[in-house]
């Protein structure tokens, strides 16, 4: 219950960040513009990895209900590992974007892009820490059918972060990734 309401709250948080991005889409006065730097294929791979982590999370919950200790630890670690790969991709992406001249202070695209994806990355990182903590507890034998709710809540959070990424990926990469230059002249 708490988690559901919290995620409702988080929806508005990302909603406002995404709205900022959409308002400023095509409003940057100077480059680099999305088409110069966004690489859809690379991010498609990391998106796929993140989606697979959701699958691992589902397996972890199933293992919890089946009271399969090795399964719980294994799938939780797998989820965390896939999440970490996603973060690795993001670090790589941020780095290469920076090298190509996209910075927070450079233009509005940079500011809204880094803020939105950065906060998403922070959510994923938090999720990984939570997954690892849960895996340690599972290794000590403290996670089982009786505490399945804890794993379920973690799963809810993880899937939510995943879904947000789907929205971000669609808007920023698939739709906005090919924008080149200002869509409307400044002031108009």
């Amino acid at each position: 219950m708490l988690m559901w309401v919290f995620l409702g709250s988080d929806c508005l948080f990302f909603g406002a960040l995404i709205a900022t991005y959409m308002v400023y889409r095509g409003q940057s006065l100077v480059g680099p513009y999305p088409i110069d730097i966004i690489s859809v294929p690379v991010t498609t791979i990391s998106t796929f990895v993140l989606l697979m982590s959701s699958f691992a999370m589902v397996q972890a919950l199933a293992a919890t209900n089946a009271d399969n200790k090795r399964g719980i630890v294994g799938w939780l670690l797998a989820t965390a590992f896939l999440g970490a790969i996603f973060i690795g991709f993001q670090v790589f992406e941020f780095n290469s974007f920076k090298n190509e001249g996209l910075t927070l202070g450079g233009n509005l695209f940079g500011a809204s892009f880094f803020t939105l994806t950065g906060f998403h990355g922070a959510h994923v990182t938090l999720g990984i820490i939570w997954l690892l903590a849960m895996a340690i507890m599972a290794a000590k034998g403290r996670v089982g059918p009786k505490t399945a709710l804890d794993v379920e809540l973690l799963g809810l959070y993880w899937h939510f972060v995943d879904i947000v990424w789907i929205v971000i990926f669609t808007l920023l990469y698939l739709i906005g990734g090919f924008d080149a230059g200002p869509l409307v002249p400044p002031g108009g």
Partner: protein
Amino acid sequence: MAAITGVLARPTSYAGIWGWMTTVDHKRIAVLYGVTAVIFLLIGGVEAGFLRMQLASADNDFMGPARFNQLFTMHATTMIFMVIMPLSVSFFNFVVPLAIGARDVAFPRLNALSYWIFLFGALIMHMSFLVGQVPDAGWFSYANLTEKPFSIDRGLDYWAIGLLVMGAASVAGALNFVVTIINMRAPGMSMMRMPVFVWMTLITSILLVLAFPVITVGLIELTMDRNFGTHFFIPAEGGDPILWQHLFWVFGHPEVYILILPAMGIVSEIFPVFSGKPLFGYPFIVFSGIVIGIMGWAVWSHHMFTVGLGPVANSVFTITTMLIAVPTGVKIFNWIGTLWRGAIEFTTAMMFALGFIALFIIGGLSGISHAISPSDFQQQDTYYIVAHIHYVLFGGSIFGAFAGLYYWYPKLTGKMLDETLGKLNFWLMFIGMNLTFFPMHFLGLNGMPRRIYTYTAEFGWENLNRLASLGYIVLFFAFLVFIYNLWQTRNSRRVSHDPWDALGLEWSIASPPPAYNFAEIPQVEGLDQYWIMKERARAAGTPLTEPEALVDPSSIHMPSPSYWPIFTAVGVALIGGGLLSHYAISFLGGAIAMIGVIGWGNEPAAAPSEHH
């Protein structure tokens, strides 16, 4: 991890300052919120006093424009975020578990965490006075006035970080109340048997949960603009200051309902008790509350009529704003219907509640006059707006809170606030309030802009301003009477558990309530459960005169006090503090918060019973 848990052994004492710092009891947390809010009421009130002193005469040089800007910014921010909101949360904490027949809130330690984060956030913002760099851009801090070129010192960073930290506290607190109300009601208490105050708490909490993330994003973007070189709100770089206004008011308009709905809930509890009649039209009051909660999201641009959004947007928001007056009017008619032909008892609580209706109607009517976008063009940024906001927030929220204080004080302490002093308190406040704020309507219509630090005598504003400043003095005496009234109850005798012959479950138990609230969780048969119980006993010829008997507390398993909430809150506060000083402190804060969460997770909610 067991080692971490071991470092801070579970507190076992309920006494002394440590008892207060580690408490998870919703009643004690309510007291913490309440006392904090009254202290900030004094601070915000003194700030207002300086403002009124400056404006009392034309061409005054008591203070300069810079100081004036700081004081009105901090006055408004303090009153809204550090007085009215914590006062409401104090009532949520004290009343809700008692009114729904629960032993505590759903997450007692999270509740304590909310309080401590709130307190630290408020302190962060007030530290700006110590470093002499005070926020000075008004309580809605419009961009791009808030950007570095126009506001060079760090005052606005204190403002933004303080609000971010307090926002986290509000969301955590509100989540807790949503879950408490949905999941913790006593058996038989269906949604439509909940007291109106509990309903309003639920709606307010949902609004808080949904509105605060939006301002959080706005504040983050502002902080990044000021510290990390982004240009979200700087037009020269393509940014759009209007975006700040949208983000602020999408939060800001639900926020005004967050401020007023709890007061509406409080008076809805008080009117039936002192009219000797059940509440008139309970479902209408509940559903108009829900409608206000939904429609509150569709009116934010009425704060922005003069921005130039175009005639279509202005018309739409004029219409939605006029419409939202309807559910509010429905409530007022229901309250009047409750009073109609009732056996009205003029207790202090009742007088404050009646004052609430009178003043809120005035504030509501002036609100309608600037809901109409053409007439708002005349009133925008004048003292007319200042008059309006004070009639709804002071005449509405604060009068409602005082009504609640006088009403529930005997339940909280077992002692009654003095009624004679209370009536003196009411009349001073009522007269002072009208003397201060009614002239502002005329000042505004005569063209006096808000937020000017002085004016010349030729404008002819001096007499009305002097009257307003005089009213402030009356208000200040009202506050002193109130404080004295609280103070003198230390000697007064105990009263019965049900001094008002009231309706709700909270009056069926002893005053002050035992730590476990209800020895036996009540079975609820209808709205106004305690009244049902009393009527049944009366019919059987054995009137209920005693509260529920006390039992041995060790037989009831209650959540135990914990160090982790305050420990984690220190971490969260340091994250914010680090952004203002040195980033290393942020990392330290993050580490502390992390340790706090781990320790928290490893600590069972209640200690094994041998520790009791």
